[in-house]
């Protein structure tokens, strides 16, 4: 599936398009199909996202998994500071990016 990511303009937080709004959780990301460019153009113009782009991802039993390691690390947080990750309580989570 195709999902959209970018950063919140004001805070810089990594965000994912959930169909209505931008979520901090990659698992909320929805397949945008062929709408990627149109949504990004609209959201960028409305200053609701910065530096947005579309990526390939898969929906798995665990949630949404971006195709490339760079976007998986974006989704999770730095693997060397899991206290700031999407799942700070899960100490084994860094393997997820591989």
């Amino acid at each position, binding site marked *: 599936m195709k999902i959209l990511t970018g*950063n919140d*303009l*004001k*805070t*810089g*937080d*990594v965000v994912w398009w959930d169909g209505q709004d931008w979520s901090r959780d990659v698992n909320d990301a929805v397949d945008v199909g062929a709408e990627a460019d149109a949504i990004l153009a609209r959201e*960028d*113009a409305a*200053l609701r996202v*910065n*530096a947005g782009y579309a990526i390939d991802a898969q929906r798995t039993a665990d949630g949404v998994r971006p*195709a*490339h*390691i*760079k976007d998986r*690390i*974006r989704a999770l*947080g*730095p*693997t*060397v*500071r899991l206290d*700031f990750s999407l799942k700070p309580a899960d100490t084994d989570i860094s393997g997820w990016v591989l």
Partner: protein
Amino acid sequence: MYQYDHYDQAMVDARVAEFRGQVERRLSGELTEDQFKPLRLKNGLYLQLHAYMLRVAIPYGTLSSRQMRLLGDIADKYDRGYGHFTTRQNLQYNWIKLEQTPDILADLATVEMHAIQTSGNCIRNISSDQYAGAAADELVDPRPYAELLRQWSSFHPEFDYLPRKFKFAVIASETDRAAMRLHDIGIQIVANAAGEIGAKFHVGGGMGRTPMIAPVIREFVPALQMISYAEACLRVYNRYGRRDNKYKARIKILIHEIGADEYRRQVEEEFAHILTLGLEPPAAELARIQSFFADPSFEAELPEAIDRSDPDFAVWLDQNTVAHKHPGYTVVTISLKPIGGIPGDASADQMRLMADLARDYSFDELRVTHTQNIVLPHVKKADLYALWQMLEGAGLGSANLDLISDIIACPGLDYCSLANARSIPLAQKISARFADMDRQRDLGELKVKISGCINACGHHHAGHIGILGVDRKGTENYQLSFGGSEAADTSLAQITGPGFSEDGVVDALEKATEVYLAQRSDGERFLDTYRRIGMAPFKEAIYG
């Protein structure tokens, strides 16, 4: 150290006001991201993998206690309680909010700090020798020359849209501790036969995808013509540096393509013209700046003897201190490389503690090194034990300066949007593998440098052992290289062969150390043995 007068302060304040307006225009939509990006970069603000990142300039790596304390306070107030010291002697905050950036810059300005020109295609922060003003082997303190260059390069109207970024380093001893010849311009302050002070200009060095060692472009530029000569070097580059391909836009490529002789000829022609314009600050200005770098009030007749009865302290003493120019004092390096830690990271509490230690033990002064450690430049030998105990208590007592666990690592794919592979976890694995102190000391000086992409922020080309992370079909892969150096014997590392997985590269590195231990002659470092016996025995051990 240098202190701002009302002119310097007004310039930094004006910059904060300018950037505040630019951020407002971005947040209101008046500026697009494409228009805003070069403006924010010139204030050190990146959009990284997880958030905005702010790079704060630490001119020539020198900090006061007050400045270091504020850096810690900013980490708590605006970030997540830590910061990352970089290979260009700067500090990066990883979790910055755009809307708060003008306030951060305003806070920095209260202690004479800023983020001016820490990114963008302009003249970047001037780096220098972290032992300046303290080293026993220096000709003069290089920092007044670096400060002259800092002022000249700040908001330089002609050189704000260069073909690419531009980095200076200034040193004043034969021992190069600043990777001087791997900069766009590397200046060594030297004396000529008549004893006059001047600048030896090396131009066209750099790392990145095409590493080059800077050739000497002029052996001696009189000190009071240094700015004019730099102006000539930059003007030739601004006019003729390549702009058709960003990967060929650094000055090293221009000089490589036209040749050092032709570049020198053009610079000399421009220099002759510029000398007629009277652009050079007068001797009185250099003297004014130099007065700020006068020696602190060193005490006389201090004891030289140090009680070495605590064996852990003795190891640290031998490893992390070097000779000071003044009797009774020593230069201390605080390692930011604990086993399994993140190279160059310091918590807000650690920053404040280091600030306090500098106040109590080092005339209020600290330095940042390009190897991502912190230096207390002027510590009484009599205070070393008390200082070491404080450092130990704060996780800052690692006795590994220049050893295998004193690894340079860029932020890599954990933080950086340019990276292809992670650097930090690899550094952690290497330091854990070689955690045993006796083993590290037996291996001796061994500089491991890791970059997560070809831009080489982790200086892998200059590592005795260099590691470059690459993306191989979506998987992290690491290329190993040997034989680099960024010291006075500057050399570029050579790739061993096919790349490795993260664990594979740690194993390969360990095998290489075994080859060294088996083959070394008396007194040889890993680098020396490699240079003597060549790549073949290492390759055989690693791939055989």
